[in-house]
């Protein structure tokens, strides 16, 4: 089973396409829900609820999005691991993803839950949005570099 075609996604184009769709929809769910929290930290969107409440309401959706996006990401990665891992843009994406995930579950969630100054809330929201956009950009640029 050492040939590339032994990988289910390499043998079935429709399965590869479905996996990519699941990856994109899941990343949209995760990043989109984080962006709703970021908007709240920027004093936009759901101002009726505190940032902490918006975070709690979206946390489970974000987590499910992450789990599906990362699982499907690994599935796509497994179709040609040597090429993916050697690629500098893919390495950059993986580093940015780890930084963004780390930021999300430490500083971002702490600031959203606590009552911090406006400057802190705004800065954290901007950093969060920038990090997630950089993950998306490096994911797309991988295919072009």
């Amino acid at each position, binding site marked *: 089973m050492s040939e590339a075609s032994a990988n289910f996604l390499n043998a079935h*184009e429709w399965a590869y*396409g479905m996996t*990519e*769709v699941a990856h*994109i*929809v899941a*990343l*949209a*769910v995760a*990043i*989109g*829900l*984080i*962006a*709703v929290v970021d*908007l709240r930290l920027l004093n*936009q*969107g*759901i*101002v*009726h*609820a505190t940032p902490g*409440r*918006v975070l709690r*309401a*979206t946390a489970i*959706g974000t987590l499910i999005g992450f789990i599906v996006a990362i699982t499907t990401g690994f599935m796509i990665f497994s179709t040609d691991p040597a090429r993916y891992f050697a690629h500098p843009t893919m390495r950059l994406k993986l580093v940015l993803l780890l930084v963004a995930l780390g930021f999300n579950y430490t500083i971002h969630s702490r600031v959203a839950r606590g009552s911090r100054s406006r400057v802190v809330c705004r800065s954290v929201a901007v950093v969060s949005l920038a990090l*997630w*956009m950089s993950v*998306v*950009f490096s*994911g*797309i*640029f991988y*295919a*072009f570099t």
Partner: protein
Amino acid sequence: MTLASVGRTLQELRGFTAVRESAYVYPVILSTHVACIALFGGLILLTNVRLLEWCLTDVPVDEMIERFRPWKQLGFVVMVGCGSLLAASKAAEYFVNPFFQIKMALLGAIGVHGTYFRRRVYRPAGAAISAGNARAAAVLSLALWVAVATMGRWIAYYDAP
């Protein structure tokens, strides 16, 4: 005049040729398109989950819709703007691609959805929103947007005969 010839004429325009042949402009537009899908998708998802009464039930639904509206409009304009540039720069392939055609039809259906539920759900003008209408609008919206994203990705999988 066929769809393919219209597409060819369109993509030969200087601006669209420049987008297609550029090393960086094309991926930047594509990345922006996908980034907007993520940002815009979160707003759509949360609105629909709220319409289904699954979360944030103490936030009035019309207030959430109202507060999200300018951000959805901004996301939509950037997303469609980038998408149009991408499609126009490869119009000869895209116009005859069945997945692209289905995607455009689905976007049309989203327009019909928005018009139908406009007074009933999205701009109720003080009137109460019926739970049935709210649920129908939410389920249809989620299904249509996931279908649009799916067709968008599958455009790349079509081999012209």
